[in-house]
């Protein structure tokens, strides 16, 4: 996978479009087991990211991802703010100074992001959270020879599996067993993020070819 600084920027912009398009659906998922603000928060946060990064020139993948993280931390009031913000911040540290990120470095960035999410949310895999998508995606990425489409497919399957998990974190945890049968909103927005990577990689390939 060819993840250049420009591709990383396009990734974040594509993610913003996807969050905007799925705003209603994300909030619907969140209304069932949370407080119903996830679509609004993600769409708003990524709209601010777009404002921040769209017209700015970056030298490294870490720089653009860090700007996104600081914007999300400042502008997203719900749980998604500190969680996505920390994820991007940790990944940006690994990708700092790199105009292009290798498959191995991409996986290292994901690993750092996951450690950040787990620490910030005091969470682990199997608790019906975004980690239930990020961890399988990391495992796929660690195999090497990364194909964005394969990552997105892994993310989709992992997201769908959250339907059968009982929530242990966030407001959904109050519902206990009643949270089973609903998709996790954070898992769904994470799937959208990895889906957006496919769009950015494809667009980057066309631009280069």
């Amino acid at each position, binding site marked *: 996978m060819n993840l250049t600084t420009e591709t990383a920027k396009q990734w974040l912009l594509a993610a913003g479009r996807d969050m905007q398009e799925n705003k209603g659906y994300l909030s619907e998922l969140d209304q069932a087991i949370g407080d119903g603000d996830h679509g609004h928060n993600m769409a708003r946060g990524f709209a601010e990211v777009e404002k921040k990064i769209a017209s700015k020139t970056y030298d490294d993948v870490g720089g653009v991802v860090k700007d996104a993280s600081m914007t999300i931390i400042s502008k997203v*009031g719900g749980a998604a*703010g*500190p969680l996505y*913000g920390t994820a991007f911040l940790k990944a940006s540290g690994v990708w700092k100074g790199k105009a292009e990120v290798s498959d191995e470095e991409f996986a290292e960035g994901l690993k750092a992001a996951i450690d950040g999410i787990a620490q910030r949310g005091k969470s682990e895999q199997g608790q019906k959270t975004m980690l239930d998508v990020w961890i399988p995606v990391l495992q796929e990425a660690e195999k090497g020879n990364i194909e964005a489409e394969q990552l997105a497919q892994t993310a989709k399957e992992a997201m769908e599996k959250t339907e059968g998990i009982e929530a242990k974190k966030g*407001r959904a945890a109050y519902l206990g067993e009643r949270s089973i049968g609903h998709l996790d909103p954070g898992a769904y927005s994470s799937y959208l993020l990895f889906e957006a990577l496919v769009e950015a990689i494809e667009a980057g390939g066309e631009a280069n070819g």
Partner: protein
Amino acid sequence: MAKVSTVVVSHSRQLADGVIELINQTKQEDVIVIAAGGTEDGGIGTSPDLISEALKKADNPAGTVVLFDLGSALMNTEMALDMLDELEGEVVIADAPIVEGAYVSVVEAGMGKALKEVQESVEKAKKWNKKT
């Protein structure tokens, strides 16, 4: 002598300000209580930037007790603490209901108690039986 400060973090600006309004009736003049409620644009949520500002205002050598209302308020408080480095006093996050907790916090601070003692008393407010 410096007294322990209190910061109240809530998803709602009005709720945080309301707690301060209530507590101001009880507290001594030299005890500092600061609200950090809502997002920057006044919406529902919490903001690490607003929490950082509140922590800086409350900062003193005796330290600060932070009270928070719901889950992501804790995450954003921890985030604010990660980003701040130049505070004079120690900051502790107390696990307690915000109204009762803030009340105990300012009363104990007013008596000149140390940070850990104030925190301990504040966290006992979780088990108050209010009907007897």
